[in-house]
């Protein structure tokens, strides 16, 4: 079976600086793969390559067997990969319903309707409500996004990505900026929603080892642009050397969240 996502020998250099070096990994249906590593390990670069935003300077990146190097976020969204950002990305002046509707309209190919009415499209309306309900935002449909709480903004960001009905969703620190009490709630919500919505694989970029340990089916550790380890959680956390390499520089962070 072809993997959903696959990179073979991917490298990315900016001048002399090597951000990624010979990264090969593959993600299959049903997996939740966490990408971990200290700051500057190349996580963000890898995510940008995986989402077609950056063209790698070496190697191949494929999604569903097709080359997606540098194809850009719009085409990738249409092929079935969605992304939620580390920093909350919302449309501040738009309501929750309008935000989700943007994704629903683009996913259903209705973007180019110049004279149709958004309000009277029942199919769009139902789908917007359905997505909002999954993320517990149904009571806030008519609220302006900028007035939501930080946690709700985060949920809306992820919900709008979900509204694309993606096969793969990439979550870049979905719980950053959220209180530690809320983080498990949001993660559980997202993982459940993904399962119900038929998402085939989740890629999670995360600093928080609690979450990584609890939700991952596999962990890919990066250091200095290279793959240090690619293992199941039990093996990963069973190897103190690797954990130290990844977590060592994040002790402060762990203490804070503990």
């Amino acid at each position, binding site marked *: 079976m072809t993997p959903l996502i696959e990179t073979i020998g991917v490298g990315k250099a900016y001048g002399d600086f090597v951000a990624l070096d010979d990264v090969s990994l593959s993600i299959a249906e049903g997996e939740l793969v966490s990408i971990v590593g200290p700051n500057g390990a190349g996580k963000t670069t890898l995510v940008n390559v995986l989402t077609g935003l950056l063209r790698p300077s070496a190697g191949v990146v494929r999604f569903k067997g097709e080359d997606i190097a540098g194809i850009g976020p719009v085409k990738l*969204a249409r092929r079935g990969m969605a992304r939620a950002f580390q920093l909350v990305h919302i449309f501040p002046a738009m309501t929750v319903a309008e*935000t989700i509707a943007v994704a629903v309209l683009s996913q259903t190919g209705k973007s180019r309707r110049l004279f149709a009415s958004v309000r009277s499209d029942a199919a769009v309306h139902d789908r917007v409500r359905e997505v909002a309900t999954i993320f517990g935002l149904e009571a806030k449909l008519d609220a302006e996004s900028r007035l939501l709480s930080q946690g709700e903004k985060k949920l809306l960001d992820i919900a709008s990505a979900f509204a694309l009905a993606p096969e793969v969703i990439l979550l870049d620190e979905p719980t950053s900026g959220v209180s530690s009490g809320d983080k498990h709630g949001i993660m559980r919500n997202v993982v459940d929603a993904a399962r119900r919505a038929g998402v085939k694989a989740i890629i999670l970029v995360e600093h928080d080892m609690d979450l990584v340990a609890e939700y991952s089916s596999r962990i890919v550790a990066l250091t200095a642009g290279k793959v240090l380890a690619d293992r199941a959680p039990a093996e990963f956390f069973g190897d103190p050397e690797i954990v130290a390499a990844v977590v060592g520089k994040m002790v402060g962070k762990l203490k804070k969240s503990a």
Partner: protein
Amino acid sequence: MALLAVLVLAVFPQVAQPYYITLVLPALAYSIALLGFNLLFGTTGLLSFGHALFVAIGAYGAAVLSSKLGVRSFEAVLLLSGAAAVAIALPVALLSVRYVRIFFGILTLAFGMLFHSFLFKFYDITGGDTGIRVLRPALLGMDFKSLDKTAFLIGPFYYYCLALLVLLAFVMWRLIHSPFGLHLVAIRENPRKAEYLGVRVRRFRLIAFLISAFYCAVGGVILAINTGQADPELAYWTHSGELVFMTVLGGFASFFGPLVGAFTFIFLKSELMGVTQYWRFVLGVTLLLIVILFPRGLMGLANDLWARVRRA
């Protein structure tokens, strides 16, 4: 409210002096132009400092078609001038929509200045600084020969333009409330996020730009027929500035704001010019006060007052 405004405008020529009626015509013209301008500015978040370019193309289109090519049908003049504006807007937009904020503004400003100098230098085609005369068009095939110029302008032409404004405002209303319009707002609010939701940001900006150019050209045609002249001042960058002024004055966040701005600006300017030679100074101070005190313009102010009245 909109219905009431249309009624007032429909009755206006019956009760007002001809001078004031001839002021309404440019206000109608600017209302149409600004509906387009604000699709780009208020809705999509791209502030152009060069849209007088497209107003001028409408005016020169009307001039060339009527005096040089003998086209008398107003409808043909509107469509051909609008098409010319869209054709010229295409390369301008292709370059400009790659940029945002100040870079977009400067680029459109540069294109506007380029066109202005073209009008000046190519005397044979454009008539240089004197411009070209615009002949009276036939409306729906009727040429109203029995009416003199003023009677034509404040009679049939006035009502035609009013109807045109209503029609084009309705079309714009539908556009803004369509999926296309919602995507434009998303692009204004957060282009990166919009891209990740599958919105073709540049293409949508481009389409909004072309539509705005068409509306500006229609406004330009009406302006030129009203004055009987297309001259290079129409393309000068200060004229682009006036488009921005009117939109901010009325309120770019509201659908009808630019229309309120157009009417306020035209009447304010005319009254001030009668009172003082320092009218530019007074207009400048007005804009300053609006931006500082009421950044959402007159419509924003009106909405706040209305909300306060309802609460009381």
